[in-house]
Structure formats: C-alpha cells, structure tokens
C-alpha cells in the first residue's frame, strides 16, 4: 500500500484540526519561552491550507505538499512559517509527480524536508528547536521504510520518535530562535515548535493508520 493525494489531503486536514485543538496549548508553551504566538501562527496557517483545499484538491501527493508549503509561507510568518514552509516545499520536490508514495518515498520526502529546515534555520541537535523532534522522526521513518514498512508504519514510527524527541527538549537550554534570549531560563520548558512537529506527525500517522 502507498498513499495517494486523497490520503495526504486527509492527513493535512487532520493536522489542521489538531493545530486548532492545540492552539492554546502551543500559545502557552510559546508564552513561557517565546512570544506567545506559535499556536496562533500554526492555527492560522493550517486554516489557510484547509481554505485552499476547499477551492481545489491537487492531483498528486507532491502537489498537495506544495500547496501546503506555499500557503504556510504566505500565511504563517514568524520563524515557524518559513521553516515549516521550507520543509513541505522540499518534501514536495522530492515527492515529484508520483501518483502515490510508498514508505520509502515518504521517508525520502521527510528527509528532504528536515534537511531544508536545517539548511534554513541552521539549528543543531539540542539547540531546543523543532529539529529535536524532526531528526529522530526522520531517522525512525527511514529505519521503518528500510525494513519495508508501509506508509502507515513509517509515519507512526516517525510520530513516536518525534514525541520522544519533543519531550527531550524540556531540559535543554535554547541556542536558536527567540527562546535563546532566555539563556538558562529556557530550561524546563517544552519547545513549542518541537511540540507542533510531534502533533502534526501523530495526526498524519492517525489518518494513514485508519485507511
């Protein structure tokens, strides 16, 4: 089994629901070590994505990912807008024109997306950013796909690893993004961007698992 545009669209819609449901939680996380807008940013961005999907549903997984990317870039702003935007854009390129993605193709898209975030944001592991959720997620995805995992298995491996990775940001002292201004005071808080990554991947895995 491999996932089609229809499934990617369903996953994105589910992601939007989750972002909306967790808006206030993400605002609170960002208020603690940032400027309190992350939940609003992600919610605004994914609402815009859903609005775009109402107008027309792109025909391929790659086209869906590209629509998500450009919509996030032009509606989120802040640090997370260009970073998530780049991730989806690179993932879209890698997905290309394929009608559907198998586990390996999915892992490759995820890898391209994560590399894009690293290239743009220049964060390193343990800088207390979304990278700390993304890197373990992509490694887990690649491993699962390498074992011949289906998209559902690949995504749920990624989601689990992202969850662990996000939680690992709690004790860290931030070295990138707004939280870095806090110095030592940033320790003891979950990074909002990492939390978003974990939430989104869990939402995507959810939908794939249900198919």
């Amino acid at each position, binding site marked *: 089994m491999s996932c089609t545009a229809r499934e990617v669209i369903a996953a994105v819609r589910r992601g939007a629901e989750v972002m909306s449901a967790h808006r206030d939680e993400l605002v609170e996380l960002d*208020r603690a070590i940032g*400027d309190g807008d992350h939940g609003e940013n992600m919610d605004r961005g994914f609402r815009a994505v859903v609005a775009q999907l109402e107008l027309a549903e792109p025909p391929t997984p790659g086209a869906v990912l590209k629509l998500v990317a450009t919509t996030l870039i032009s509606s989120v*702003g*802040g*640090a997370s*807008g260009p970073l998530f935007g780049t991730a989806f854009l690179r993932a879209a390129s890698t997905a290309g024109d394929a009608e559907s993605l198998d586990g390996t193709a999915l892992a490759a898209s995820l890898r391209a997306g994560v590399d894009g975030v690293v290239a743009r944001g220049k964060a390193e592991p343990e800088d207390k950013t979304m990278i700390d959720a993304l890197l373990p997620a992509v490694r887990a995805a690649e491993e699962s796909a390498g074992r011949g995992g289906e998209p559902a298995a690949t995504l749920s491996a990624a989601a689990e690893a992202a969850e662990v990775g996000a939680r690992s940001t709690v004790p860290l002292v931030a070295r*990138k*993004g707004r939280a870095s*201004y*806090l110095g030592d005071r940033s320790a003891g808080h979950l990074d909002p961007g990492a939390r978003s990554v974990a939430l989104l991947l869990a939402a995507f895995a959810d939908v794939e698992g249900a198919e």
Partner: protein
Amino acid sequence: MKKIINAPADVVTDALRGMAAAHPDRLRVHLEPDFVTRVDAPVSDKVAVVSGGGSGHEPLHVGFVGSGMLDAAVPGAVFTSPTPDAVQAAVREVDGGAGTLLVVKNYTGDVLNFETAAELAEAEDIGVRTVVVQDDVAVRDSTNTAGRRGVGGTVLLEKIVGAAAARGHDLASCHEIAERVSAGVRSMGMALTAPTVPHVGEPSFELADYEMEIGVGIHAEPGRERVELESADRIVRRLLEPILEDLPFREGDEVLLFTNSMGGTPPTELYLAHGVAERFLAERGVRVTRRLVGPYITSLEMQGMSFTLLKLDDELRQLWDAPVSTPALTW
C-alpha cells in the same frame, strides 16, 4: 484583557483601516497582503527603503512611511514577522528603478521571511540589499543565541537611510550608510509591566508589584535579570552602563541619545529619565548633540523604556537633520 478592539484576529487589519482613514494624504494602505506605502510611491530613480516586522511596535514601522524615511512598511500579525509574499508585493509597489533596501530586525522569523522576499524580488530583477539591525546589548552576542535583537536602533537607521535615499544616494551607498549606523548603535530596555498580545489574552509574563525586568525585548522577551524596582537614577545607570561598555562610546564622542517609551510609560517619566541620562553621559564626557524622546518602538501597552545611543559623524548628523515627513516623525 482590556483593549479597545473588535475580534482579536482582526486587530492589525482594523488598525490599518484606521490608519488609511487618518492619513489619506500621506499613506496608501493595502490589504491582503497587508502593507503601507507612501502615497506618491514609487519615486522614480530613488532607492526605495522598505521595512516591516510583527505588529505591536507602532509607530514602528507603519508610522514612519513618508518622505525622507520609509517607502513601505509591511506589518505582520502581532509580534509575528510578515510573510515573504507581503514583503515582495510592497517592494514591487515602491521600487522606483534604483533598487530597494530592506531593513530587517534580527529575529529568526524576520530574517527568514525577508530572505525569501529578497529572493523573490531578485527573481523579478529588482536590486535588493538587506541590512539586519542587531543593537540590543541585553543579549550576549554568542553562538548560543539567535544573535542580538534589533530594537531602538531600527528607528534611527530608518530615518538616516531614508534621508540618504531621498538625497539620491545609490543602493550601494545607502547600504553602506545603513551598515555604518548598525555598527555604531546600541540599545538596552527595561519593563515595569507586561504587554498582552490580543490573540493570547493574557500578559506575556508575570511581574510582581515590586519587580522590573532589565534588558527586556520589544516582544516582552525576558531580559538579563529581574530585580526590585529602583529609582530613575539607578534604572538609567543599569541601562546605559552596558551600552557604554559594549561599544566604546568614549569621552569626546558625539552621539545621538534616543529615549524611548515601550508604550505605556508616559512623557513625564520619559523626559525625567532622559534628563538623568543626559547628566550621566555628560559626566562621562560623551557629547549628546541630537536627541529623540518619545514612544517610537513599543511593545503594545507595556510600561517601560529603552535607551539607544548612536555614534554620529558629520554625514550621519546631516542625514538625521534632513527633513522627514511621516505620521509619527516630522521635521
């Protein structure tokens, strides 16, 4: 949350509508994407100066659009960098053929979004140069941070480079002047109270009745330390000493002193602090020859203030003195 607003999500757009109504002779306000241009843009053969950033710091940047300062300002959501397409649209609208200088405050979001915008504009054959303002000495500049934040220095830089563009300097020269300002400007701020972001609805931090935050950022980012409230004399010293330590403003140096309200601090307190600062600097032989006092780069309704010191040379002083006509700054 106590604010005079309608729906929190519409605050920026609603305020832009009010600005359009208030300044029909000076500004053109564009919605979706949101940006503000001077009414006579584009000015042919003049370098366009464009800035932007999250809303909530007004009059920065929208209030500085006009002759002798910004050609366009691009406001994002409150405390959130604008998106590249909005910046690109603004550049397209105001570029007069001599290229565009982007003035960006050093925050991850602003840097990334303006970077993309610059690429998009260049793809349309518009010459773009970028200056990143990073003047906040509260943040130790090291590889362990996102770098220094852009704060009060932005106002001075926008005025000065706006004057240079108005005088006919080309893009390279405007960029050089902007870099010179950036190299010679330092700021530090403090807060007595926290602002409340409309879509959050709660104060950005909690501060006890007897506390103040030293080194606060304009998005209410925490500062160097949280200490007990003190006299104006001591507060001024706490802000100016790190500035003087960081950039050697030395005896005999000529400087511009900018005393800024974070929004909620009224003129009485601001002028009082300004007077203390002038005496403090005079005692150290630093010659203040130009000053700006008022709420020019704010953090919503936050009470607090910041100082910015800019080293002046003849050219920068003349550019500072050059005429400017915008909603928030005119002479």
